[in-house]
Structures are given as C-alpha cells and as structure tokens.
C-alpha cells in the first residue's frame, strides 16, 4: 500500500499541506470559499514544528492499526485498498482512537464531535498535500 512519507530536512514549515487538505475536504473545494464562507474542516495533516525543524504528520495507515481495533462503533475502518478512514456517521466521539494512536495523528473535530484524520484523499491519484508541497518534502510511494 502506498503511504505518505516526509522528508523533514526540506520541510519549510509553510503549512500549505494543511491548507490544501482543508480545501480538498471542504464542501466547495474552492480555496477562498472553503476558508471564508463555509464551515472549515480540520486538516488531516498537521505540521509539527520546533525551531528550524518541521515536518508534516498524518495518519500512517498502520498495518496493525490500534485505532481500528479499539473503535467501539466500527467507525474507524480499513478500506479494501488498505487505507483507514473514519465513518463519521458511526463515530460517537469517544476519542478512544485518539488515545491509542501511537502517532498523535487523529484529531478531535469539536464542531461535529467526530474523529478527524487523513483519508489519503479518496478519489485522487496523489493526496493533495503531496501534490501541493512546494518543496517536495512529502512523497507518496
């Protein structure tokens, strides 16, 4: 299964990955509308930064995913192609997945009270964070 990898030595901390992730998961997929006129989804990728070091972190789509195993409603599930998604219709916001995730890659969507995470951009050949990184600090392989 293809995964997103990060090259932290060339991550420039611009956070464009987060911005394009928000746009991709917005209602209109129009960058200006998504940020100004619509409820803004949480980005599935988060740039961690300390001093000059930064890198983008998103769900690793683990082979033995503790979030899937621990999910009490079956919202957190693995699709046939291997990616892990959260079915927000079934998520009850118990945050068990957040507690078991070894990477801290799942976040609380407080507005909808559901878990929010990277879905590797369903329908896209390459996730938008990878495609739009201006310094090729993210790869999909």
């Amino acid at each position, binding site marked *: 299964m293809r995964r997103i990898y990060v090259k932290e030595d*060339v991550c*420039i901390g611009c*956070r*464009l990955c987060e911005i394009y992730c928000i746009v991709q998961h917005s209602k209109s997929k129009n960058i*200006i509308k998504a*940020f100004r006129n619509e409820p803004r989804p949480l980005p599935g990728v988060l740039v961690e930064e300390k*001093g000059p070091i930064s890198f983008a972190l998103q769900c690793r789509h683990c082979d033995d995913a503790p979030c899937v195993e621990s999910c009490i409603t079956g919202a957190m599930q693995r699709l046939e192609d291997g990616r892990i998604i959260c079915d927000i219709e079934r998520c009850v916001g118990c945050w068990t997945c957040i507690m078991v995730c070894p990477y801290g890659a799942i976040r609380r969507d407080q507005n909808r009270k559901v878990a929010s995470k990277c879905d590797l951009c369903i329908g896209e050949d390459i996730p938008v964070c990878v495609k739009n990184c201006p*310094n090729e600090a993210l790869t999909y392989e």
Partner: protein
Amino acid sequence: MLSLCKGEFSVERDDDRCIRCLVCVRQCPSDVHKYDEEEDRIYSDESECVGCQRCATLCPTDAITIRYKPMEMKENANWKTYHLTNIYKQAETGGILLTGMGNDKPYPIYWDHILLNASQVTNPSIDPLREPMELRTYLGRKPDLLDIEDGDELILKTEISPQLKLELPVLFSAMSYGSISLNAVKSLERAATIAGTYYNTGEGGLHKDLHKYGKNTIVQCASGRFGVSPDYLNAGAAVEIKIGQGAKPGIGGHLPGEKVLEEISETRMIVEGTDALSPAPHHDIYSIEDLRQLIFALKETIAYEKPVGVKIAAVHNSAAISSGMARAGADFIALDGVRGGTGAAPLVTRDNVGIPIELALASIDQRLREEGIRNNASLIIAGGIRSSSDIIKAIALGADAVYIGTAALVALGCHLCQKCYTGKCAWGIATQDPYLTKRLNPEIGTRRLVNLLNAWSNEMKELIGGMGINAIESLRGNRLQLRGVGLTDTEYKILGILPAGE
C-alpha cells in the same frame, strides 16, 4: 535618529482573496507580514520588504502583489533617488554601503548590440533534430603543433596537457560554501555531474561530504587560502587561482563571522565565528613571475595531472595581464566582467569598477592571437551571461566557454533582490540559517539546473545549426558570424566585428 529612507516596495494585499492562511507570515525572513488575531487581519510592514517575491510566489490565492515603489523625489537629472537614498543611508550609518549580485547600472550591454548570422541559399543550414551537433568543449593548454608518427596506425607523439572535458561550453561560476548554502552547492555539484560540466568551489573550501564528487569540481585557491590543503587541491578536476572578481575588482572577499558556523569553519579551516577576510591581493603575488611560482607550486601539488587556471576581473589592462598569465603557465584564464555577481561587495565598487566582459573578451582574444599564444590557455568568461544567445555570441567573439553564476542562482529561485549580504535569503540560497536553507531542496535544485542546461544546449544547437555549423569548435572566434547594431567605430574596432549591413 529619524531614518530618512523609506521602504522600496509596497505590499498590496487583495483582501477578497486573502484567506489568512499565514503562509506569507511564515515565509518572510524580514518579518514584513504580521497576523493580528484580534482583528483577524495581516498587517504588512513595508519598510522591511526587500522585494524577494517569496510571499507572492507561495501565496495559494495569489492575494499578494509586491510592487517596486521607490521614494518619488522631485525630478532631477543629476540627483537621482539612488544618490539621495544612498546619502541618507550613509549619513545615518557612516559606513560603506553593501550590496549583493551584479552591477545593475545601465552600462551598455554589448550582447544586445550584436546579432548572429544564419545560412541562406548559398550555404546549407543544419537541423539539429536530424543531424548530430557537437557542443563538447575541452579546456586547457593546446599544443603549438601536433607531432604525429605516420605508419599503419597514426600515433600521436605530442604530449597533450591535461584537459577538462565539458559536454557544453558552460560551467557554474565560483560561489563559495558560506556565501551560498550547502544545499545550493549540492544542487550545483549534482547538476554539473549530470550535465557533464563543472562547478567551482569559490574560495570557501570543499565540504567534507563533497570530496568524493570531485571529478566535476574546480577547486579555487584565493588570497585567503581558505580550506586549501593538498587533499583539497587533489580532490578537484582543476585548480583555479582567484586573483579578482568582476563584482569587486581590487578587493578581497568578506564573509561575516555570524555566517561562519561549525561546518563552514571546518571547511574553511578557520575558527568558528571569526570573519573570513580575504586580503585584497595575494601577498605572495606581486608580479607575473610570482604568479608563475604559485601556478607551478600548485601544479607540483597535483602532479601536473590537472589544469591550473587563473581568474581575474576584467579591468583596463586585462589584455596585457592575460598575455602574462598565458605565458606564466595558466591552462585556462577566467575573466569576470563588470556585471559579475557577488554575495557581498561595496556598492561603490560593484557599480563603478571593471569593464564590460564583451570588450575585455574581444581585446584579450585578439591580443593572445596576435602574440601567437592563444592556444596556451583556454578562455572562460563570466559576468552577466543571461541566455544561450549570449553564450553563442561570447564563443564567436573568442571565448572557449562561459561561467554562469547569477543565471544558475536564478534557476534555483533567486529573484535578484540583491540582499545576499544580509544572510536572510528567503529562497534558501545565500543564507546559512537552518530555517531558510531547507527551502532549497537540492533534488529540485539539481533538476532545475539540469533543465536549464538542457534547454540552453538545445537552443545553442539551433543557433549554430542555423549558421550551418555543426560543432561549437567551428564557431570559436568566428567573428564573421557576428554583426553589430548601434555601436561606435571604436567599439566595432575593439569588438572586431562589422556593423550590420557590411
């Protein structure tokens, strides 16, 4: 003291487009953009803007326009804004004004007054897409004549001096590790390796990680001798003695101590945090005879296996000096014109010292030919080569190859804001700040440089093919392929070309 200098740029933010993503805030190394959470608004302090265009380029909604907005003074043909603001700055600081990159004053650019020939009817032009074209270039001393033993097989009896083999007549200029980032050096090194040419270490030594890639490296030995050791000299494919630089003829380099971090101090073999000051002259070279001694001392060190060249800035008597260099044992002469770039130079020197490379090249090539020693040394010219047509014109004027520095940096993202000397390059090129150097991904840098060289190669083949020439060797010094427009009789005489129509 109240500063009388205003910012040079205006920052225009289209509020209909700005999404407050704060990319501009994070990317500006001069802290121009600041986010006010209370008002959910980004304020821009224009006085700090250097016009590097980083924010405008990375803004995902194209909301930012940076416009050049110099102070508008009452019109005065003598006292330009340039002079006034310089005086204001000096009255405030009492110091020499520093700048970066090459001379930006409107001195004549002779490339733009020279036109190329093409074949029509009486001589066939060549289509580079259908027929082989040769850009390969050898740099180094060529023999006076070839001694060949005849027989069943021809045997070359003349010993050929060491040569540099280039797949195209373009090399990357000397830019030191220190003046530019390690990622920039790595991009140049990898691109030179892929394209079959050379990059030049400048006077900053060779980083330990790069010793193993020496076969595409020209190592420089400058007046400060930074990082020079037998290992260093032997690591490269050629050695270049740097006497002068086009941007600052007559003065040495200056790398401020703040930029001399651990790895640079190790590479340059100087104490961390100390200024790296190159003396203006080489204190062991006060004559051509002294230069000859250094050339041969270096040749001894590298066992006469690689060429040794000398780089000078193009100045009034460079033709006579070149004759001396060619006789002193230089295998190649690098000549840097008045528009040559730099990481840091006094503004007054950069803008007023030196001569245009076109005139220097023509007069040196002519002088060496007249003296019958043109084959003693190859001629590499530098300083303001902007395009493949500039290269073709340079070669027809008599150059063997060209160095590109600024053009290479522009390919890496440089926007010529001329603030290299501040060490805050927003594009990660002329900086050692770890937060900024990451911005130049050497993989992307390499790709961009290789693309540029490929594009220029293809264009050069088109141009020489149009003249009916299939090898760059046949164009070298072929000034009949050039015609001038809008020049004076004296300029035609120095350039050795005819006016268009003649």
